[in-house]
C-alpha cells in the first residue's frame, strides 16, 4: 500500500491564500460569510460531481477549506452542510437536493447529535418509541432541510416545519440546537439499509475532514502563541526566550506537524470505498482531536492573564477544540473502532 500524496498542490495553495485574505477581512457574521463562500466562491459544492451541479473537486480541497475555516473559527455550516449532509445525499442518490446545496442556495443538516460517532445508531433509528426531540444537532439552525435517520430509512424534512431550540453551546462559534420533530412533514430519500450506510458514510467523512478543521485550530493557536511570546516581556526579556516556554511550543509544533500528515492522509482516503478510509478517519480523530485541544490549552496558558479573558480570542479556539474532540465520537471511541479495523481486538 503506497502512501498517497500528503502535500498541498498549487490549486490548494492558491485557494488557501484567497480564503485567508477573505477570512481576515469579512466581518464574521456567519450569514454574510456563507454567501461569499457558498454562493460566490462555489465552495459548498466541492464534493458534488460536476454533472450534479458541483465542482467535483474532491475531499482534499474541501479539507483545505475546513483547515482555513478552523483557523478563523468561522461560524458557517460548512462541515454540516457541504460535507456531512452532502455525503449522506450522495450516498442516497438524492440528486434533486444536491444541486441547490452545491450552488449555495440551500443548507442541509444531518439530524443527529453532534457527538454521534459513525459506529452507533441514530436516535430515531431502532428506538422502540421515537424520541420527541433530537438534541445537540450542529449546523441545523441555518438549515433549510434536515436529514432525519429513522428505522424505516432516511427522511428529508422541511426545517421550517420543526421546532428548533438553540442550545447554550460550549462552542459559541458552532451553535447547536435541539430539534422537535412532532408533526413535521418530509419525504423518504432512502430505505433503511441505504439510509444507515449513508449516515455511516456521512459521519465517517465528517470525522475525516473535521481533522483538517482541528489542524487549522491547532496551527492558529501555535502561530498566535509563538508571536505573542516573542513580544511579551517579563523580567526584562521576551518570555519566549525561557526554555520552559520554548520546549512546550516545540512540542506543539511537533504535534501540529504530525496532525498535518494525519489530516492530509484522512482527506486523501476520504470517500474511497473500503476499510482504509475508515481506518484513516478513525486515526484522524484519535490523533488530531487531542492535538487541537492541547494546542488550544497551551495557547491559553502561555498567553498568561490575557489568555483567560473574554476579549482575547483564545477562548473561542479552546471551546472549538474541546467541542470538536467530542464531535463524531470521542478519541477513545475511535481508538476502539480502530482496534477492530486493524485486527487488534480487546479480548
Amino acid at each position, binding site marked *: *500500500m503506497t*502512501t498517497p*500524496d*500528503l*502535500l498541498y498542490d498549487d490549486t490548494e495553495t492558491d485557494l488557501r491564500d484567497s480564503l485567508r485574505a477573505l477570512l481576515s477581512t469579512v466581518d464574521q457574521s456567519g450569514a454574510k460569510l456563507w454567501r461569499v463562500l457558498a454562493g460566490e466562491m462555489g465552495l459548498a459544492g466541492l464534493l458534488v460531481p460536476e454533472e450534479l451541479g458541483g465542482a467535483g473537486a474532491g475531499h482534499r480541497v474541501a479539507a483545505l477549506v475546513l483547515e482555513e475555516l478552523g483557523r478563523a473559527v468561522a461560524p458557517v455550516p460548512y462541515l454540516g452542510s457541504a460535507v456531512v449532509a452532502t455525503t449522506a445525499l450522495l450516498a442516497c442518490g438524492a440528486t434533486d437536493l444536491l444541486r441547490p446545496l452545491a450552488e449555495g442556495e440551500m443548507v442541509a443538516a444531518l439530524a443527529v447529535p453532534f457527538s454521534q460517532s459513525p459506529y452507533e445508531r441514530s436516535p430515531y433509528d431502532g428506538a422502540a418509541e421515537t424520541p420527541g426531540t433530537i438534541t445537540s444537532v450542529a449546523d441545523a439552525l441555518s438549515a433549510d432541510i434536515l436529514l432525519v435517520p429513522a428505522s424505516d430509512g432516511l427522511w428529508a424534512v422541511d426545517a421550517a416545519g420543526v421546532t428548533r431550540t438553540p442550545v447554550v453551546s460550549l462552542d459559541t462559534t458552532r451553535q447547536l440546537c435541539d430539534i422537535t420533530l412532532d408533526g413535521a412533514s418530509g419525504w423518504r430519500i432512502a430505505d433503511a439499509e441505504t439510509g444507515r450506510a449513508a449516515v455511516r458514510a456521512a459521519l465517517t467523512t465528517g470525522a475525516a475532514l473535521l481533522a483538517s478543521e482541528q489542524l487549522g485550530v491547532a496551527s492558529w493557536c501555535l502561530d498566535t502563541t*509563538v508571536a505573542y*511570546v*516573542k513580544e511579551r516581556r517579563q523580567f526584562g*526579556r*521576551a518570555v*519566549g*526566550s525561557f*526554555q520552559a*516556554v*520554548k*520546549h512546550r*511550543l*516545540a*512540542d506543539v*509544533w*511537533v504535534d501540529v*506537524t*504530525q*496532525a*498535518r*500528515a*494525519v489530516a*492530509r*492522509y484522512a482527506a486523501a482516503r476520504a470517500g474511497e470505498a473500503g476499510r482504509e478510509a475508515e481506518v484513516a478517519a478513525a*486515526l484522524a480523530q*484519535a*490523533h488530531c482531536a487531542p492535538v487541537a485541544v492541547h494546542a488550544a490549552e497551551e495557547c491559553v496558558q502561555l498567553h498568561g492573564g490575557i489568555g483567560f479573558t473574554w476579549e482575547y480570542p483564545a477562548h473561542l479556539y479552546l471551546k472549538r477544540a474541546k467541542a470538536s474532540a467530542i464531535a463524531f465520537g470521542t478519541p*477513545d471511541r475511535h*481508538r*476502539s473502532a*480502530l*482496534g477492530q479495523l*486493524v*485486527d*487488534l*481486538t*480487546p*479480548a
Partner: protein
Amino acid sequence: MSANTWEALVEELLARHPVDGDRLAFLRARFDAGLAWVHFPVGLGGLGAPRALQAVVDAELARAGAPDNDPLRNGVGLGMAAPTILRHGTDAQRRRFLRPLWTGEEVWCQLFSEPGAGSDLAAVATRAVRDGDTWVVDGQKVWTSLAHRARWGILLARSDPDAPKHLGLTYFVCDMTAPGVDVRPLRQITGEAEFNEVFLTGVRLPDDLRLGAPGEGWAVARTTLMNERVAIGGTPLPREGGPIEPLVRAWRERPGIRTPGRHDELMRHWVRAEAARLTAARLRQQLAAGEPGPEGSAVKLTHATLAQRITGFELEVLGEEGLRHDDWTPLRPERTDVSNRAPTHRYLRAKGNSIEGGTSEILRSIIAERVLGLPR
C-alpha cells in the same frame, strides 16, 4: 538519468558478476557502476540521479538475490562520514575513502563527544597541534560506537584554543590504527559494550587527513550532525513497522495478555506510531518535491519518545516474562541492531534514543529557535 540507463547498468552488473560469487568483488563492481548511492556523483559510486531512485535500484538488486553492504555494520560511515567527505573532502580524499566505506571494507566511528562536551559539542577540548605536515592530537573521546571495529574515525578537535569556541575547531579523519589511539570498552545500561572510550595520546595525523580548512571544523561537523538526524527518519517503514512491531505481534498471538485497559493503551501507541510514520512519509514527499521542510528534527524526537513508551508498555504487557532478561554479559555487538534481543533489552536500549545524536531537550531548543524563531 533515464530509467533505461540504470536498468541497463543493473543488468550489466548482474551479467558480469554472479550474485553467488565473491561478495566483495560484487560490491566493488556495484560501486564502480554508480549503483551504490545513485545521488552521489559519477565516479564516486553514484549517477548524479535523484535520491528516490536508490530504493528502486536496491529493490531490483535484492530481487536478483544480490549481496548488500550490510549497512547496519557501518551506520556512522554511511550516514554521517560519507556525506561529510563528499561535501567537504578533497578529490583525493573522496577517491581514497568512499569506495571501501560503502563496501564495508572499512568501518567508521565518530570521535565527537567528550566527557566535558556532550550537548555542548563545540566545547571539545581534544587538542590538535600542527607540526609541519602533521597534526599531533591529544585528548579523550567518549560514547564512540563501534570504535573497536573501526578503521577510521571522524574527529573534531581544538586547533586554536585562543579563538572563540566555534571558530577554533578543525575536523580530521583519524587513523584508528595509528600509535597512541587506545580504545577501551564502555559498558552501558544494557550490559553490553556497544560504545567505547577513546584515548588519543600524541596521535600523529598527516595533514592530508584534515577535512575542510583549519578553524572550520564546526561548519564541517554541522554537515555530519544534520545528516545524522535526517538518516534516522530516512528509511520508509511499513504500517506497524519499527518499535511497535513486536508488541502488536505479541498482542495478536497471545490472547492471554489482552485486557480492556491495555487495549486502549495499545491503540494509543498504534495511533502515535502511525502518525509518526505518516509524518516521515510526508517529509520524504517534501524532499522529493524539492521543498525541504524542517520536519526532520521532529522525526528523531518523536521516534525516541515512541520507542521508549512502546518498549516500556511491552514489558508490562508481558508480565512475568518482562522480569527475565536474556544476557548481561558485556557483549561487543558489531551491528546497531536490536531485533534479536529480549524485550528487556529493547526497553533499556531505547533509553539511549533520547540522548544519542542530540538529546530530546537540545532538539526541542533547535525547533524552538530555528523553526519557530524564538529568541535565544
